[in-house]
């Protein structure tokens, strides 16, 4: 054997040794389960009664996605699912608002001001503490009678709504909380990094031409931040589809009247409240397909709009 090939084989062998621990985990806890869950999606399996697993073909998906006729009008087989998809999308409407806020904050923080590190820490605080404790905190803030928001509103003579108890306000309430939790976090820092990457010469040239601050933002900052915006948008969409479990579990139990149940909370309900593993797996797969197709769509369209 040639020494070259020998070395190649040796390198490949040590590569596999390097990969082994991670790859075993990948096989056991990621790719294996992915295949198994695809299989589960076509079965009926009630873990609670421990009834045996039954192959049902497309039944889960038909129930989930298809409709039947009731008195001549089409009715979804699982109207709850569509409602919860709607809830998820509604809450995702907060994403662009949050992004705009992050960008504005980043622009403000990009100015040479003293004590900016302090502000950065303050704005980052909600992001790092986001979790069960924060959801509990917001449940108290949103308390109808004695919560912070309604008692502040009462001081100016406004009767605050039952934020988490009325179907009209529950989703906006969660959106406001998400905005608070994310506006100064990762996205702001990504925008800040993007802003610092823009050459100051561009702004100088624009100043000489007499451009106003808004014109500078419009024709330099915004296009130069295109890739950053695109990246944040894609990642936020992926996250948004899967979000909402913790808030629903801690704050609202998905209510009132299912108005804060998102897809991920519905999966949890099916799998761990009702132990309907097959149906839960099929919802998880539909969710995956939604995430996947939206991401592909974003890449295709985004690739055309964003200039690198």
């Amino acid at each position, binding site marked *: 054997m040639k020494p070259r090939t020998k070395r190649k084989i040796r390198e490949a062998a040590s590569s596999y040794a390097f990969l082994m621990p991670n790859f075993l985990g990948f096989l056991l806890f990621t790719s294996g389960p992915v295949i198994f869950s695809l299989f589960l999606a076509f079965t009926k399996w009630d873990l609670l009664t421990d009834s045996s697993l039954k192959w049902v073909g497309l039944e889960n998906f038909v129930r989930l996605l298809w409709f039947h006729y009731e008195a001549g009008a089409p009715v979804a087989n699982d109207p709850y699912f569509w409602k919860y998809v709607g809830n998820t999308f509604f809450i995702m409407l907060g994403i662009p608002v949050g992004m705009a806020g992050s960008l504005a904050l980043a622009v403000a923080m990009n100015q040479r001001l003293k004590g900016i590190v302090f502000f950065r820490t303050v704005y980052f605080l909600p992001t790092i503490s986001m979790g*069960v*404790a924060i959801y509990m*905190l917001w449940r108290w803030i949103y308390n109808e009678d004695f919560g912070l928001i309604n008692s502040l509103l009462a001081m100016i003579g406004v009767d605050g709504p039952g934020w988490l108890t009325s179907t009209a306000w529950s989703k906006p309430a969660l959106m406001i909380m998400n905005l608070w939790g994310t506006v100064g976090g990762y996205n702001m820092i990504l925008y800040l990094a993007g802003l610092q990457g823009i050459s100051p010469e561009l702004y100088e040239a624009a100043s000489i031409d007499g451009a106003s601050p808004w014109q500078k933002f419009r024709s330099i900052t915004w296009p130069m931040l295109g890739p950053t915006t695109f990246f944040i948008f894609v990642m936020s969409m992926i996250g948004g589809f899967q979000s909402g479990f913790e808030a629903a579990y*801690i704050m609202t139990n998905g209510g009132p009247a299912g108005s804060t149940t998102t897809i991920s909370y519905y999966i949890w309900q099916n799998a761990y409240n009702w132990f309907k593993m097959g149906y839960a797996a099929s919802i998880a797969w539909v969710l995956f397909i939604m995430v996947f197709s939206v991401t592909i769509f974003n890449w295709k369209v985004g690739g055309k709009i964003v200039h690198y």
Partner: protein
Amino acid sequence: MKSLTAKESKARKKRKGLFKKFFLYALLSFFGISMVTPFFWTLSTSLKEPGNIFTSTPEWIPRAKFIEREGKKLDIRVKEENATFKVLATGKIRIGRKNRIYSERPEWWNPFLKKYYVLEKRKEEGKEKPKRIYVKILKEKAKVEIIQEGPDKGKVLEVPSNAIKERVNPAWKNYLEAWRAIPFARGYINSLFVSITITLGQVFTSALAAYAFARLSFPGRDKLFLGYLGTMMIPGAVTMIPVFILLRKLPEVLNWIFHTDFWSTTQYLGPYMVGTPIGIDSYFALIGPLLFSAYGTFMLRQFFMTIPRDLEDAARIDGSGPFGTFFRIILPLSKPALATLTIFTFMNSWRSFLWPLIITNSMEMKTIPVMIASFQGLYITDWHLLMAASLIALVPMLIVFIIGQRFFVEGIRLGAIKG
């Protein structure tokens, strides 16, 4: 118009700069305050006596009520507040409970109108909002119970409301009470053990794999890497269900193979319950599935790619194999990236909720977030305890963040570099 001299225009520019700075600080401060207000609110609630939480106007500083009698200060609890008020609509004078008075503020559209109103808490059939009755308060009285230790303890008196005085009095005992209400200490040990093990494992396995992907060549490398990247898009819910089923069924299978019931029996370490060996309610279930991460592999690969190859070549010429190069050259050079991944992983596993929630049953095996959630179920309306518990859970995160702050900013940038 007279043209400006150079000096004047410079001064104008400076003034404009100052104005801009002022505006920016004002803006940043305003939103900054709204960022930290909830935390202050939590802290303040957590330090209040249970009776002082439900106030219609926010009280930021926890206070205790007392009255002065014969020159002595006596701590009291307000039992009932009454008021004589005039109903403005009819002119009638009535006596009623003070706590029925919902707000003592004027309406926003007329700040000079010093009217008071009582909010009827009963909602009328078919009406969205409770009815408001406007009243003017004439005289306020309160029934108070003396809670100060001494001969007068337990006595109930009626005093005019303005005789009740207040002093600053944080109720630190709330923290002790919250801490004792559920096994928080055990939760802390669980969370620390689980988070540290996951972090060490994830960083180690990710670094090894990342080096293979970044520097070594082997058949199928790029396809495999693409597979890793692809899994990052799969929702956690997809894999969670099968892993849950696996861990639920595994003990039964092992018992059947080895003809024992060891695998499904709860184990004890001295007096301490340490869960089952494998399966639901075990440390293995809490840790095992999280020892491997596609994200960590991806992030470290991106970083390893930026290390100059010369150093490795030098090491290789000196006769060092891939393992020697990895441990002696790559790892020491990647300290910032490794530190970043460490902090991220630690914080993510500390706050992780869904997986520990579904995989644990007994209180002894729960991690801090799950414990807090079950605490909420037990103490639904004890907001002072709930807020104290929330802060107890938040403190480690804040400490880690303050220590590792600079790594955060770096890490976010690293994660976003497209490969």
